[in-house]
């Protein structure tokens, strides 16, 4: 018989306007920072926003945003807490920052469980922070979040874009909607990513400069909102709404 959880996932997501999966294939290119700050930026613009940390083995959005001492409440499922205006869900509420060794199939199983029991508010945007890699979580996201649009991150480097391009081509082949590409950790202007966007028919959504002061702001919302990085992401948010 069919996995019963799959029958309610669509229903759980039906009050969400746009679902944006922040991905890129590569590790360490700023998916978590971008997802977290993008949700904050959209919320500051007055939208109802949710943030789902889908990196089950290495969740980090709670670290970026300094979220602690909150937990989901139980009511006909679980309702994620709203912190700084963003409704936030992460496996960290259940793992307490302990190592979480999971094989691929277990990751999929846990994702289905989370989607089955999580009850989101009426949201304009749900931002999904994806783990690195082009594997289980990518396919789960495509299958379970019908209509999710992908925001791909790259740096200015040809080496990094080589992987981003593979993800882009795969998504295009699967007819998955692509919101566009954001160039992150920029520290020089070579126009490479913009050109690649033209070449591969993907919208260029903006650039985020490398901000050496960002590390000092990690975990502190007020400091974060004063950073250049947040201003750059706010520019990306402008291109999305």
């Amino acid at each position, binding site marked *: *018989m069919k996995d*019963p*959880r799959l029958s*309610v996932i669509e229903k759980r997501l039906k009050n969400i306007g746009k679902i944006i999966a922040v991905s890129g294939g590569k590790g360490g290119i700023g998916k978590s920072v971008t997802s977290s700050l993008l949700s904050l930026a959209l919320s500051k613009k007055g939208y109802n926003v949710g943030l789902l940390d889908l990196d089950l083995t290495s969740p980090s959005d709670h670290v970026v945003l300094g979220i602690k001492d909150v937990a989901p409440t139980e009511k*006909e499922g679980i309702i994620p807490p709203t912190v700084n205006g963003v409704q936030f869900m992460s496996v960290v509420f259940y793992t307490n920052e302990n190592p979480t*060794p999971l094989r691929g199939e*277990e990751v999929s*199983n*846990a994702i289905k*469980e989370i989607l089955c029991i999580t009850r989101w508010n009426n949201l304009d945007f749900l931002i999904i922070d994806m783990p690195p890699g082009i594997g289980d979580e990518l396919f789960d996201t495509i299958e379970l979040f019908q209509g999710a649009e992908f925001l791909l991150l790259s740096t200015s480097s040809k080496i990094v874009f080589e992987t981003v391009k593979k993800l882009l081509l795969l998504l295009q082949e699967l007819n998955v909607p692509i919101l566009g590409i954001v160039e992150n950790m920029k520290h020089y202007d070579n126009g490479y990513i913009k050109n690649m966007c033209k070449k591969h028919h993907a919208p260029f959504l903006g650039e985020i400069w490398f901000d050496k002061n960002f590390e000092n702001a990690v975990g502190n919302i007020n400091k974060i909102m004063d950073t250049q990085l947040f201003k750059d992401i706010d520019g990306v948010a402008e291109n999305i709404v």
Partner: protein
Amino acid sequence: MHEWALADAVIQTAVEVAQRESLKKITSIKMSLGELQEIEREFFDTALNELMKTHGDLFSKTKINIKTIKTRFKCRACGHQWKLSDTEKTLDEETRESIHFIPEVAHVFIRCPKCKSPDFDIVEGRGIGIDSIVGEK
């Protein structure tokens, strides 16, 4: 009471079956619950009954049969097999609560009793499963 969300999944699945097979009534739902998830049966049964009422006559004579499956683990490193009851004593209330929401969290807190590896499979008794849904036209 997140049991409600899981009961919702079961009923929704039955509704889909009824639509697909043009059934007027669902007569039987056979399902299993994994011990690991520690579903509170009272909450779960209440939720099922409440949810069935929201579908007119479809569930007016449904018999629900639920069996609980004991949880078995198998270590991928050394092959050792064990039951939840063998490791349960090491789990505190908060941990069990976490596993109750997301059974995979077991990998955070349970280790192979023989070789201490976290790399094990939950062979059976994880969570909710439907064995059969039967109805009449």
